[in-house]
């Protein structure tokens, strides 16, 4: 039975995987695209989180900020996933050995759960994002803080992949 490492090695050994890894320009260009796209998607999520916490754009209704930015956050994420997928293709065997990579994906999963809980539970409570309220409810503020913290951890883990290649 193939192990996870075998599968990762096989992914990396495919023609596309090797082509990206060996190209002088492809790898840094894809990494740069990943960085810019995450600055748009995660960056705009940070701004939304700060709005939920009441620290940014307080004079603009929170619902307008969330719904206005959503399509751009999603476009940014599409580009993040495509560029990230290509980077994984080129160095699957290396990155799965890094604890930072494992934690990064655990935190991405947690960020997704937090966003789903906010979207389907917290924001649907009566008056949760009501523009008449001067202060948003505590649950909304906490959801913003949680999102800000989790996405920060995702970025920290992502940057540390190169610095923590092995578990020990």
């Amino acid at each position: 039975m193939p192990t996870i490492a075998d599968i990762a090695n096989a992914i990396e050994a495919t023609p596309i995987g090797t082509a990206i890894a060996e190209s002088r320009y492809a790898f840094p260009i894809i990494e740069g695209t990943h960085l810019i796209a995450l600055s748009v998607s995660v960056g705009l999520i940070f701004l939304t989180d700060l709005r939920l916490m009441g620290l940014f754009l307080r004079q603009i209704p929170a619902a307008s900020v969330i719904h206005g930015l959503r399509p751009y956050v999603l476009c940014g994420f599409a580009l993040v996933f495509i560029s990230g997928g290509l980077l994984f293709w080129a160095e699957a065997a290396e990155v799965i050995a890094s604890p930072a990579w494992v934690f990064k994906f655990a935190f991405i999963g947690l960020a997704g759960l937090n966003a789903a809980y906010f979207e389907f539970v917290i924001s649907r409570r009566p008056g949760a994002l009501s523009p008449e309220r001067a202060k948003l409810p505590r649950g909304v503020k906490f959801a913003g803080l949680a999102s800000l913290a989790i996405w920060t951890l995702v970025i920290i883990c992502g940057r540390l992949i190169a610095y923590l290649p092995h578990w020990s």
Partner: protein
Amino acid sequence: MTTADFLTLIQASTLSHAISKSNHLLIAGFQVFHVMGFVLLLAALVLISLRLLGLILTQQTVPEVAGQALRLVWSGLALAVGSGVLMFIGSPKHYFYNPAFEVKMVLLLAAILVQALLFRKVAHTDHPNPWLARASVALSLGFWFAVSMAGRAIGFV
């Protein structure tokens, strides 16, 4: 004093030694702050740009959206430059003689000039000329994207 002498002087400083001789995770920490600063800068810039293009929050005026966001742009820049300067002090010659670093510094200067002389002023205008707004957005985002691309290239040349 030549540039090489100056770089040698930086490299011989206590701070430089402290950074370059320490655990490599200190540099990783600087890298994290560098990326976080850039993410804040670019996110705030994209927010203002989307409003300038009339794509979001059209119920609010441009300055209403941009006011606080412009401060966030400068805070993000301060974070990125601060961590960047510390990395440079740690190994000045390694960076100074890297062609991608040179390109990045020229692009950074251009991006900051566009930000200070054009983008900031347009973002403080109640009803900016639509073409001026579009040109500011294109120039500003173009330069900042190029800065990040050149930055990513430093490790590869």
